[in-house]
């Protein structure tokens, strides 16, 4: 093994990571490269975040990391140290979020598997930009794939959320 290098942190099995999930502080002893998706679903039991492509290509596992959407399947445990993570459970902690309400009203889902990820991306978009232009909506949702709806109803849901002030966090 290597000589210890001063100021270099070294960690293997038994690595401890601390972060906040939906406002609650969490400390986990996990391999440093374990995926955030596994931490959320398997270690913390928050199954609203969906597992699908596992390659950052579908957006089903979208969560907010320090307020910005990231793919939980691409993010590793050590990259979450000190971070503030919000999952779909956190978004709906105080009842249906206005964005979820808009998806429901416009039928912005069919099987619903992509919906938590979609909602997370829309919540992040509207928090940063409450009045996005159509091309800004398309860009913000470009990493969320849906295989059922054809997207028209999803875009209607986003527009409804904008009209109803979907950027307002109620919780």
């Amino acid at each position, binding site marked *: 093994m290597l000589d210890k290098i001063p100021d270099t*942190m070294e960690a293997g099995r038994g690595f401890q990571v601390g972060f906040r999930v939906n406002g609650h502080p969490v400390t986990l002893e996990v391999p*440093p490269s374990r995926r955030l998706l596994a931490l959320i679903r398997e270690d913390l039991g928050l199954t609203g975040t969906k597992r699908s492509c596992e*390659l*950052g290509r579908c*957006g089903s596992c979208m969560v907010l990391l320090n307020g910005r*959407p990231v793919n939980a399947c691409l993010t590793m445990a*050590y990259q979450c140290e000190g971070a503030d993570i919000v999952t779909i459970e956190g978004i709906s902690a105080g009842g249906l979020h206005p964005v979820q309400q808009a998806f429901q009203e416009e039928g912005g889902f069919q099987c619903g598997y992509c919906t938590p990820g979609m909602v997370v991306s829309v919540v992040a978009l509207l928090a940063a930009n409450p009045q996005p232009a159509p091309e800004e909506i398309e*860009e913000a949702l*470009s*990493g969320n794939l849906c295989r059922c709806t054809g997207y028209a109803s999803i875009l209607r849901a986003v527009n409804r959320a904008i009209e109803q002030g979907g950027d307002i966090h109620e919780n």
Partner: protein
Amino acid sequence: MLQWREDLLRTPVLYQPSTLEEARKLKRELGAKAVYAAGGTLLRTLWENGTAALPEALIDLRGVAGFSGVRHEDGHLYIGALTELSACRSHGEIAMASPVLREAARGIAAPSVRNIATIGGNITCGYGDVLPALLVAEAELAVSGPDSSPWVPVAAWLADRWGSAYDPETIVAGVRLPSASACIELGGRRFEVYRKVGRREAFTPSLVTAALVGTIGEDGVLRGVRIAAGGGSSRPHRLEQAEALLEGRRFSAELMSSLCETVHEEYAPSGDAFATGAYKTKTAANLIAAELWRLLHPREHSPEQPVSPGEMASE
């Protein structure tokens, strides 16, 4: 066919150095067992796809001093290697210094991936989609350290990266671009264009990327033209013969034909599982000629870039 992959059961040891020298020392001692990581988005994709094995050690560069931030320095805009691609997409100073870099960042993956992925990683892989933009922006790289090492032009660094003598300890610490104000004022209309063609319209790996910058004079003459092409996992490079063909010439339909032929001769990427080399060459030639054509006929194709009649080039 299913294959047993022992590497996926590994737990890589994580090293978090705080200086560049520590990072290099770790890589020197661990060799091929270790990989540098920052955002890690490309690495994760390679591991999951089985294109690369999960390494025994990760050297996390995110804590290394001096690799962060965007700032003006000595007439240049410095972009630290840890700058996320989402910042390259939205940072006002970057947009002013290099519209092509901003546009390149817009087309890479999706916002959620760009929130983790860094410009340093996109450069270091040797085929990232920011590279054609950096080539035409005449960007330079701080290789190994932000202060101690010379600035290396992107083209020279790419020659090294794709060469057989590339030093695996190499770390790209940052990029610098000529400041917007430092752009040579040639008069006329400046153009900066970046286009990507992938397998679908958005959120897709590139097949072909092209970046073009230059100026169309009042007299319709092209000056300071720089063109680069890349895409997929091909080595991006400047198209110097195409640049020479256009330099000092007046825009014309005939010139566009010659341009297509020149790009055909000059850009020969290899094929991959999704497209042949010939397809990519043809796409690059058509893309570059089409974008110049659009500049020639802005009213027909690009209402967002109006020009006055005096700026219109004559055929």
